[in-house]
Every structure is written in C-alpha cells, then in structure tokens.
C-alpha cells in the first residue's frame, strides 16, 4: 500500500496536463522553436501563428474577443497586473479606494496590500458564513473614491461561486472598475464575457489541465479599460505586458481551454456525481461540517472540517490521498486557513479541514477508497481525542473554562 502513488484529489492546487495538451505542446518545444516576435523568418511566423490561434481558443471559452486577451505567466501575474495596473491608471480620475473580499486568493489580497503601502485605502469585505458576498453589504462598501473592486468567481478553498453578474452591475452603476479572478472557474463554470459586466478577468492554465507558467488577463475593449503595464520591454502584448512569449505554453493553454469548452458540460456532470458520492460517504462520519455553500458551488470541490480531530495528525493519517488542508499556496504554514476563519469557523474547525478537489482523471474507485480511508482514520483519531470523550459525555466544550498552564 505504501508503495503506490497516493490518489490525487488536489485538482484545485494544480491539475495534471491533459496528455492531449502535452501532445500539441511538444512540437513547439522541438521543431517549431522560433521566437514569436521574430518577424524576419518563418520560424517566428509559425510561432506567432500558433500563439494567435491559442489566444483565440482562450477567448472562445470565455466569450471574449481575442484582442481582449493578454498573455501572462499565470494568474498571480494576471491579478497583479489587473489590480495594480488599473488602480494606478485610474487613481487620479476615480480615486484611491479598493474593495475586495477577505477570502480572495493571496495574489489579490497581497497586491491590494501593496497598493495600500503606496497610499491607497482598502476594504476587505467579510463574506457570509456560507462564503458568499452579501450584495447589500457590497454596495454599502462602495465609496465616492472607490476605483476598483476585485471579487473571485470561484473560491479556491471552498469552491463557492459568487454572483458576478449582480456584483458587476453594482460596480457598473457606481462607475467602479471590476476585476474578477477566474483562475478556479474556467472549465467549471460557464463564463460569457460578452454579457458579464466585468472589466478585467484573470485566468490560469494549470488549473484547467494546461501547463504551469502561463495565464491570461482579459481586458475589456468596449467600454475600453486601460491598465498601466507592470513590466516594460519589447512592447509585446500591445505594450501591456512585455516579455518573449513561451510559444509551447500558449499553445498548451489554448488547447486546454479548447478541450474545456468542448467537454465541460459532460465532465462537470460526471464530477458532480463523484463529489456527491464522496459527500454522502463522508457524512456518515459524526461531527463533520461542510465549509461553504453547497448549492452555489463548483461540483469539483468538497471542503470538510472533521470536529475533534487534531489537524496535523489528520494530514499525517491520510497519506494515501493527496489533498490540501487549506490553499496550496499557504499550506506550508500551520496557520489555520484565513478563508475558513473569514467564514467564522473556529481555529479548531479550520485546522481540521480538508479540501478534496476532484477532476478529470478521478474515478469512482478513487472516491470509494477515499471514503473508506477517511472513515477508518477519523475513527482512530477521535478515539485518541479527549475532547471527543467530553463531547460524548454531553459536555458543551465551548463553555468549558480551561485552567491556565
């Protein structure tokens, strides 16, 4: 048992590259190795054509015009470019206040924090206990000098889907630039930018079966949104983002997004069945809490807290599956997830949470194995827990006054 690879249930951290995607990438690593900016020979033209085809595929998945797609090195760069780029461009005309949500990805939160150091002010709106943004509270957070709002479409830890249309309409009415981090949404949620009131949207390839190291930023053309470039150089991407494009990676993202467009409807149904099976199986365990709204949620995600189980021993116990105990980007620290804390979960419940994220290559057998593993491990762990014993004895632990030591 210890020799086999763990079952991968961490698709929200990164997905494997679909073999079909890898296959179309490799020729651009080997024979078609031109620099897409080289204009004097066919090596460059071939590369440029491939990059533009891929741009079209990215645009198609999200209902955008290819001219609205700017390549970046990933969603982190897209988020930084959108937030710093738009805030800096519009600060003098619109103001220097930014609204974001406390449960955003670090790339958004930390980009906003950097702007605060530069003299901007920010509101980090707390979501409701189910992870969703209250529209009235959002509207109330808008100030006369609010320049930009940034709200993620799908949360990376709990998978809840925000009402982007409603939030976007509020922003439109108030003249606030609206950025959406959709890194976790592509291939899972239908995105139609032609009809969504969104000005800027971040994408990543490696969460949607494409390669790491490539992402994109959607920048609306009508009405035209302007951003200040964060990287200067050869003037690639119409001056918004300089740097030689990695042809094979653009091609990989294009193919990954093409496959997502063709297959997402059927795939999401299959994944939903697997997730529901997992949920039903795990709900057989006493004292489990699902984190985040179950209805407004992508089918791929299940985030569950196991009460009375100590977080670290939980992770050690479930080595047969590769899961995350919080966002991949913060899991190196032992701090409880800031996302779960923002939902009002206690430190204990936040610590004992596991994010199961299901994807294209997950099987029914994987799910059944996971249910059995969790059941047997949790049973052993709670037997070790003195808190569990107290709970079973009918003691309300929240009312216990612990002696200082």
């Amino acid at each position, binding site marked *: 048992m210890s020799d086999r690879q763990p079952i991968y249930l961490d698709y929200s951290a990164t997905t494997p590259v679909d073999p079909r995607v890898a296959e179309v990438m490799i020729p651009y690593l*080997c024979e078609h190795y031109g620099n897409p900016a080289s204009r004097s020979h066919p090596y460059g033209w071939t590369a440029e054509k491939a990059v533009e085809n891929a741009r079209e595929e990215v645009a198609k998945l999200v209902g955008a015009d290819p001219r609205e797609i700017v390549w970046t090195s990933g969603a982190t760069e897209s*988020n930084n470019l959108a937030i710093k780029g738009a805030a800096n461009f519009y600060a003098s005309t619109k103001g220097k206040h930014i609204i974001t949500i406390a449960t955003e990805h*670090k790339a958004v939160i930390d980009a906003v924090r950097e702007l605060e150091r530069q003299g901007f002010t920010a509101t980090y709106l707390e979501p409701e206990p189910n992870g969703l943004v209250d529209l009235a509270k959002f509207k109330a957070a808008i100030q006369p000098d609010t320049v930009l709002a940034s709200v993620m479409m799908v949360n990376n830890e709990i998978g809840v889907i925000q009402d982007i249309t409603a939030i976007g309409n509020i922003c439109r009415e108030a003249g606030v630039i609206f950025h959406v981090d959709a890194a976790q949404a592509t291939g899972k949620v239908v995105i139609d930018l032609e009809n969504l009131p969104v000005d800027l949207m971040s994408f990543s390839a490696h969460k949607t079966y494409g*390669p790491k*190291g490539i992402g994109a930023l959607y920048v609306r053309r009508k009405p035209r949104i302007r951003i200040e470039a964060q990287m200067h150089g050869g003037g690639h991407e119409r001056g918004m983002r*300089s*740097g030689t494009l990695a042809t*094979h990676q653009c091609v990989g993202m294009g193919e990954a997004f093409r496959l997502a467009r063709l297959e997402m409807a059927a795939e999401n149904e299959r994944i939903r069945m697997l997730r529901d099976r997992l949920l039903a199986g795990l709900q057989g365990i006493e004292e489990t809490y699902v984190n985040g709204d179950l209805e407004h949620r992508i089918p791929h995600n299940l985030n569950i807290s196991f009460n009375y189980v100590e977080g670290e021993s939980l992770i050690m116990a479930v080595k047969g599956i590769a899961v995350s105990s919080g966002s991949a980007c913060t899991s190196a620290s032992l701090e409880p997830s800031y996302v779960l804390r923002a939902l009002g979960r206690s430190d204990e419940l936040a610590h004992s949470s596991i994010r199961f994220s299901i994807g294209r290559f997950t099987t029914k057998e994987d799910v059944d194995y996971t249910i059995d593993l969790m059941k047997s491990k949790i049973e052993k762990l709670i037997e070790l827990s003195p808190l569990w014993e107290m709970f079973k004895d009918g003691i309300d632990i929240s009312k216990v006054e612990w002696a200082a030591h």
Partner: protein
Amino acid sequence: MSAYLDHNSTTALKTEVLEAMLPFMVHQHGNATSQHSFGRTARAAVEHAREQVAAAVGAYANQIVFTASGTEANNFAMRGICSHLEPAQILTSSIEHPCVSRPALAMQTCGYKAHNIKVDSNCDINMTHLQKLLAAPTNLVSVMLANNETGVIQDITEIAEMARAHKAFMHTDAVQALGKIPVDFFALNVHAMTISSHKIGGPLGAGALVLDKRIDIQPLLYGGGQERGLRSGTENVAAIVGFGAACELAVSNLTAFDVHAENLRQHLEIGLGKLNAVIFGHHGLRIPNTSFFAFKNLDGETLVTALDKAGFAVASGSACSSDSGEPSHVLLAMGVDEDLAKGAVRVSFGMTNTLDQVQHFLKALEHEVARLRNLTAMAA
C-alpha cells in the same frame, strides 16, 4: 540548403533538456508548494534545478530567484532595487535591451531620473562618460554583459567597481552571455544579474535573477509567497527543470561552443570582408557566435527577406524591435549612419550550424547583394 542563423533570438531546445522536462510535463504534475508527495517531488525538482543554475554562474542556490523570463527578471531588478531607495538617477547604457531601458524610463513617473551611458563606435561603454554621470547621486547602474545585436562584451567588473565607489547598485543583463562565455557572478562583482533559459537551449518561460543576498529587493509580483516571498506564483516546474538542465549542459559545452562558433564566424567574416560589408563592433571582445553587419546603400529589410526566401533565417536587428522598421538603437548609439544602420543584418550561430551552411549562406548573400545592387543601380 536552409539554416537557422538566429540563435540570439531563441535557440532550439536541446534533446537532453526535453528529456529532463518530459516527466514534469505530464506525470509529475504536483504544485511545488503542496505538502503531499506530488508536491514534494515537484519541490525537489525545482531545488535541483536551482543548484544547477547557481553552479552555472558560480553562485549559491539561495541567490537564485526564478522568474518567467529575462524581461521579468530585468524589470524585477530595476524596480525592486530602486523602490527601497530615495529616488535619484538610474543609469543604463544606450545599448541595453528595451526591458532594461524602458523600466528605467517608466520609473521617471515615480521621481527617478533615467540617463543613458554613451558607448563608443565599437559598442564599448564610454568610461569617461560613466564617470561623469556618476558624479550625481545614483541608485542603480545597469549595463549588459554581452550585447544581443553586436555581441560586444562589456567590462562589467570595472563598471561595477565604479558604481560601487559611488554607492550605486550594479545590475547586469547576462542573458546573451550565458552559455557563450564564462559568467561568474562573484567575479563580475554585481548586486544582481539576469539570465534566461531559452537563449541557452532551455525552454521559453523561465528566467532568473541572481542576487547578492545582502541587498533589499521588493517583489514585482505579490501572492502565495513563492521564491522566499520575492516572486509569487505557482512554480513552472517543467520550465525550471529544463532551465536547470540547459545550464548544466551550457557550462559543460562552453569550450566546444566557443571553438565551434568562433570558427564559423571567422569563415563568415572573411567572406563578408570580400563583399565589402561593414562589421559592427568587431574591434573588441565579442561573444563568439554573433556577427552584425551591413552593406552600404543596400536595404537590410529587403536583404533579410531575400535571404529568408533562400532558406536562411537571420535577424534585421533584435527580434523585439524587428517589426518597428526603426534602425537599431544600438547602431545609432555607436554613431553608425542611419542609412547604413537600416541595412543591418545579424547572424548568430548555434552548435547545430555547420561550415557548409556558412559557405552556402555566403554564396546566397553574394548573389542577393549583387542582385540588389543591380536593382538599385537601375533605379538610379
């Protein structure tokens, strides 16, 4: 006969590099920040690559910050170092790649002053001018180790000494030097140095900034806190692994590359001499693979197009500016006449080029030059 003679723009991935990358393109797909075994495998691969990259430039692994490109590393160095300092002047040479000169210009809105250091007619930094500029308070001096167009190598150690004597930080863009000449971070005596993967047979999509650990630098990208908080964003594991493998190969092949490329260039330039070409920057030290030349009264764009039809991929300046139709800023900085500069052609060799290709190229060149001269004569 056809040949790719544009290796300074980008060069083909080496087979060994592809082999190193392949497992990380599909099966070893973990996020290097994840704690499970998929993540740990990815992390180990990234750290191994970091050792390989560090070894190639004589640095320690913890001095390497991976980026997505040379452009990003240059922007990171320029902005990151200066943002901690009281705005003064930033000095860049007049032959820098735009991803060094443009960030300096963009930073003028934040109160910094950008100034160009002049070069002489051979593309060498004018040290007297640098000395004069350094009299004013200076945040940063950035001079490239080898120029992408002429291939001319600067005396970075000397320039760094001058910068340091005036309490300025020193950055060098070594993107075109790595893999072509020995590059030693400590010998160069700089605070920061940019390198890139795809110029040395690694994949596009990876670069690095080599840093003196004692300096404060502010990140360009904020987020998950990867690269010790200096560069957030999920690590591009496959590209980083490829970069590492390419670095190791580049260093072990350095002597062979030098001998091979220098030999090809000698043959090329003897031929160019016979055709009365003007070769730019050839009086001094150059990386061995690069030759930048022009013919008087001959349009370079037309020549490059004709050469392409004959099967030879060359550049008419740097790839990034080759669509602008403007004469090379490097040649203008060297004081080359604008008309002559407009006709410039760059040949840059790689290990896969052969003497036979050079001879065929020269023949095609001779033919095209004669044809175009005839046309020009007829038009006149």
